[in-house]
C-alpha cells in the first residue's frame, strides 16, 4: 500500500519525514511493547503504536522500520522529531485509535506481520 494511501485512510498528519510519495509498505504491526517489536523478523513495516517517546524512534531504527503511526492523537515530541531527522524515520499522527487505524488499513489490504 502506498504511504500516501495510508495517510489518507487514517487521516494522518505528517509530523516528520521525507519522500512520502515514493514509499510503499506491505505489512503492519500494532504494539506498545518495544521489546516485542524488537523480536520481529520482518523489516520495512508500518508500526502502529500508542507509545510516543524516544524509545520508539530508537526501536524503529534498530528494527529497520521506516514509518510509525502514532494513534489517538499522540504527538511526536521535539526530542522524537530531532532523533527521527537523524535516523530518517517518518512519524505520522492519527486521531484514530490503534484498533480503528489497524482495522481500516487491514480492510484496505495492508497485510499483518503475523
Amino acid at each position, binding site marked *: 500500500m502506498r504511504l500516501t494511501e495510508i495517510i489518507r485512510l487514517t487521516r494522518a498528519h505528517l509530523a516528520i519525514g521525507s519522500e512520502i510519495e515514493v514509499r510503499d509498505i506491505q505489512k503492519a504491526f500494532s504494539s*506498545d*511493547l*518495544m*521489546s*516485542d*517489536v*524488537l*523480536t520481529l523478523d520482518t*523489516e520495512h513495516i508500518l508500526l502502529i503504536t500508542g*507509545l510516543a*517517546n*524516544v*524509545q*520508539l524512534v*530508537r*526501536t524503529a*531504527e*534498530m*528494527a*529497520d522500520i521506516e514509518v510509525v503511526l502514532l494513534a489517538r492523537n499522540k504527538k511526536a515530541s521535539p*526530542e522524537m522529531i530531532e532523533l527521527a531527522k537523524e*535516523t530518517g524515520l517518518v512519524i505520522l499522527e492519527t486521531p484514530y485509535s490503534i484498533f480503528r487505524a489497524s482495522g481500516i488499513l487491514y480492510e484496505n489490504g495492508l497485510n499483518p506481520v503475523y
Partner: protein
Amino acid sequence: MKLVFEIARGDFTAAGKASSGIKKVLKQLLVDPKTIKRIVVAVYEAEVNVVAHSVGGTLTANISGNEITVVVQDYGPGISDIEQAMKVGFSTASRKVREMGFGAGMGLPNIKKNTDELTIQSQPGKGTMLVFSISI
C-alpha cells in the same frame, strides 16, 4: 576496530547511542542488513537493561575479521538467578521502565535468540557482564 560507550543509570534518552553508533559502522562495512539487525537489536536490549536495572556501565564492541564481540559490563546490583532472568516473561522492571515500552521480560531471551554465543556472568552486589558474539 574497537568501539567503547558509557551507559548511564536511568538515562533512557541515551539508551540507543551504542546500538546506533555500532549500526553506522556496520553499514559502512557493508555487513548484510539482516545481520546488522540481529546485532543492534541485541546491543539495544543490553543497553536498555543497563539503564533500567543497573547503576550504569560500559559497552565495548570489537569488530575483527568476520566477527563482532560485544562486552557489556555494569557495576551492579547483579543478577542473583541468571537462569530465571533468562526466562521469557520474568522481569523486575519498574513501572517507569514498562511505560518506556520495555519490562516484559523479553530482553535477555531476545539477546540469546539474536546472538551466536552468549555468556552472562554476574556477582550479586557487584555487577553483571554480558559477552556475546555474532559472525558477520
